[in-house]
């Protein structure tokens, strides 16, 4: 399978994958473009010849692109820029259509329900760590608990949310 085949086969699923993890349709489109621009740039280094191996390769790139985007807090577009390509800019209706395709309304419902399921202590620990971006030491001081206990609360809360999200959708192919 060449890059064009992979795009035809995986682009729509990848769009849903990114939309459900960034909650942003425009970012999702940008990341699909970035993934395939990277795939194109590294096509000569690709190993494996079967469709499954090719799929594993391109989804591995997609996961890296997502991780870098989440770390940076902004859509990663370096390979797109190097290639000289531009992702389409979406209007409000087009963003809504992609959100519908990705089932984001359902997903938000799952997250809200999962948050409700958490204990008040876990919810507050998550809020301080994820929303307020405090260090564990500061979370612990705010809640009046040890740093180890703060880490445990955040970790359990995140695991519960992850389980809820895994239940709400299929994971990306291995």
């Amino acid at each position, binding site marked *: *399978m*060449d*890059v*064009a*085949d992979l*795009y*035809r*086969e*995986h*682009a*729509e*699923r990848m*769009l849903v994958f990114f939309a459900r993890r960034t909650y942003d349709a425009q970012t999702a*489109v940008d990341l*699909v*473009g970035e993934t*395939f*621009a990277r795939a*194109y740039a590294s*096509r000569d280094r690709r190993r494996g010849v079967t*469709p*499954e191996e090719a*799929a594993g390769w391109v989804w591995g790139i997609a996961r890296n692109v997502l991780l870098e985007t989440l770390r940076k807090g902004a859509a990663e577009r370096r390979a797109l820029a190097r*290639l*000289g*390509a*531009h*992702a*389409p800019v*979406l*209007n409000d*209706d*087009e963003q*809504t*259509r*992609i959100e519908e*395709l990705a089932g984001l309304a359902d997903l938000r419902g799952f997250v809200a329900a999962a948050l409700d399921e958490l204990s008040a202590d876990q919810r507050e620990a998550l809020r301080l760590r994820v929303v307020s971006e405090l260090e564990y030491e500061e979370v612990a001081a705010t809640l009046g608990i040890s740093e180890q206990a703060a880490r445990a609360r955040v970790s359990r809360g995140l695991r519960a949310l992850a389980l809820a999200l895994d239940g709400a959708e299929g994971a990306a192919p291995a």
Partner: protein
Amino acid sequence: MSGRTPEQILAELGAELERAAAEAGGPGAWRGERGQRLTRLARPLAVGLTAALALAGTAVGTRNVWAPDPPPSAGAARAGGPSAFVAAGGSGSVRWRLSAQACRDGRVALYLFGAHGAGGRGCAAAPRAIQTYYDAAADRTLAFGAAPPGAASVQVSLRSPGPAPRLRTATAGVQRAPADVARRAGLPRGTAYFVVAVPGALTSVEGAIARDAGGAPVMTCEEGSCASR
């Protein structure tokens, strides 16, 4: 709602990546070595096939026109049988080929391959009676679908999205896959396949009507669903 569907947005992104790749690595770079070989072969092959069709019987000629079949994909194979090219043609400078796949639920999934990209919905996607693919590079919309065996031509009305929509109606003749191709791919026998092209981005289907050779309607489509007569 106005604007493009997710499929159209992805088709546009794919065309943009292919354009950029062609500028960076030459024609066919996006499709890799196999694609480049096909591109290099396409012109002489088309000339040869045209001559063969003119000189030889249609039955012999069409065996070559449909080959090779599109590559099976892991995802598509889970939802249906092998894909096969069932129609080919062109409108102006836009050349296309249409592939079909028999789905496990009895539907037939269609995929249109153009010079600048491809579009269509596989067996796993929600079905659409008539699909559209907008070729941004050629600024033409191609509407494609399947009609009952008795159909000889299909008239499709397409509308542009947005507050001041434009409407165009175009008619095209149908094509049928050779019996051996249909049998190999498990496709219904005699199904008529059509691709209608109009200028511009008119990607919403208003309606369609398929007629037999005598002009009698054999299928009408409105609001996304079709009824055979």
